[in-house]
């Protein structure tokens, strides 16, 4: 069980790393900071019952991000219109294209990609974080990789 006395130390020591995960999900440092702080605040209330603080905050981070993403369209702009689509252009390199393609993934698939290929978490751990079956994580990974046009045959499933 985590002691609330270590909460501040945890924020100081671990939040930079979590911020980077949040950035990969939100793709905007400002939103990432907001997402991280919201997750840390939620975690604080559950803190005395948490065994693994970092894993717990990461779970809250991902689930909070998915819930935000679902509501994102509600934002209004001065004209009353939705934000215009970004223009595509051909000059970007492969890395830039891949980064943009990750940004086009649905929230859950993006979360799977970030957890598996940035956090290097095994399938079982990702399933636990997302509250789903391992099979779902595998199918989401496959769908995401297909959209990213990454060769799935060389993905080694870690269990």
């Amino acid at each position, binding site marked *: 069980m985590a002691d609330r006395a270590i909460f501040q130390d945890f924020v100081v020591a671990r939040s930079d790393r979590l911020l980077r995960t949040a*950035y990969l999900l939100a793709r*905007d440092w400002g939103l990432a900071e907001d997402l991280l702080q919201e997750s840390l605040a939620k975690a604080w209330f559950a803190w005395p019952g948490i065994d693994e603080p970092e894993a717990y905050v990461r779970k809250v981070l991902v689930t909070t991000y998915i819930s935000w993403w679902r509501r994102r*369209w509600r934002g209004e702009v001065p004209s009353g219109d939705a934000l215009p689509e970004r223009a595509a252009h051909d000059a970007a390199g492969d890395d830039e294209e891949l980064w943009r393609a990750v940004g086009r993934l649905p929230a859950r698939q993006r979360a799977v990609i970030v957890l598996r290929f940035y956090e290097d978490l095994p399938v079982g751990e990702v399933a636990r974080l997302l509250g789903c079956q391992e099979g779902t994580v595998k199918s989401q990974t496959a769908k995401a990789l297909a959209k990213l046009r990454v060769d799935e045959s060389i993905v080694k499933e870690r269990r």
Partner: protein
Amino acid sequence: MSVRELRDVLRERAEGPSPANPHRHDQVRARIRRTRLRRRASAGAVTLAVVAVAAYLVPGQAGLVVPGETPPAAARQELPERFTSPDGTEYRRVGLVTLTGTEASIDVPVSGKPLEVATPCDGDRNRMPVVHVNSRRVHVPRYGCGDGLPYLLPVDVPQGSTRATLTFDRSEEGCVIPVEDGPCVPEQPDTAVRDIGVYEWTPPAMTIEPARIGALPGQLDGRRLADSASGRWPGVSSVTLTGSGAGPVSVSLLCSGDLAQRMWFKFWINGKEGRTTVGCPWAEGSSPSAGLELEAPEGERVTVTVQTGMWGEYTNRPVRWSAGLYVR
């Protein structure tokens, strides 16, 4: 493309320079305090609703309007009768309504002073219902809760009015995508008992000058500052920034002044209309704003025209802003 490349791209993006935030712990603690207040407010509001519904159980009633009644302690705490904003402007509550159904209305006196509405933030979004003034829909900026504060949203009232009927309607909900790649279906309605306060503020007798904004950082999110401009609202409403680099550029904003969150910025890239952003990071926090990414032709000179504006009344409450163009 390989998984190794995917890993590399993720690592490169995530492990670039991130905005430092030495105040994060304090900001999280502030959120925790506000969450506690919200929870107490919800508990108080639920109690009020149970008592009120028992007293006024009328079939078909869409919402429960409680103007003039003593609000619960929690509502008083979050939507106080009077308060002074950080810039010294005096706010006075002229109406308080509790929304239990999909719609509620309230009549408020109009003195000619600017009117604003507020509802406590709960969860991760400010769920202010759609606002109608005398049956005319008012478009107000929708903020995320951000730091959890119940933002005040300006509403326009026809000139010369002495009273206005404000209607809050939450029947029009957003949509969610329950099935991957499926259609966006209507979101579960917000059924929480919700207090909404209507406030008027007294324009300060003299202009309140916002604090000067320091220089924008030379590097941000792996990009360098190519050009910058500053202004004050009301005042300059359009500036042009130029630079050249590889691929997308970003524009970072900083503002000072209590009404900074009401500023909007619209961008044109090489003359083509681009994105619009609402709100502007407050310069007092030492954390620089993350850049708003804009697509731009690689290697070519980029001209970004920034148009600014503000929602609502701002008499004697100007906002200073700075915008920086960052390129790779």
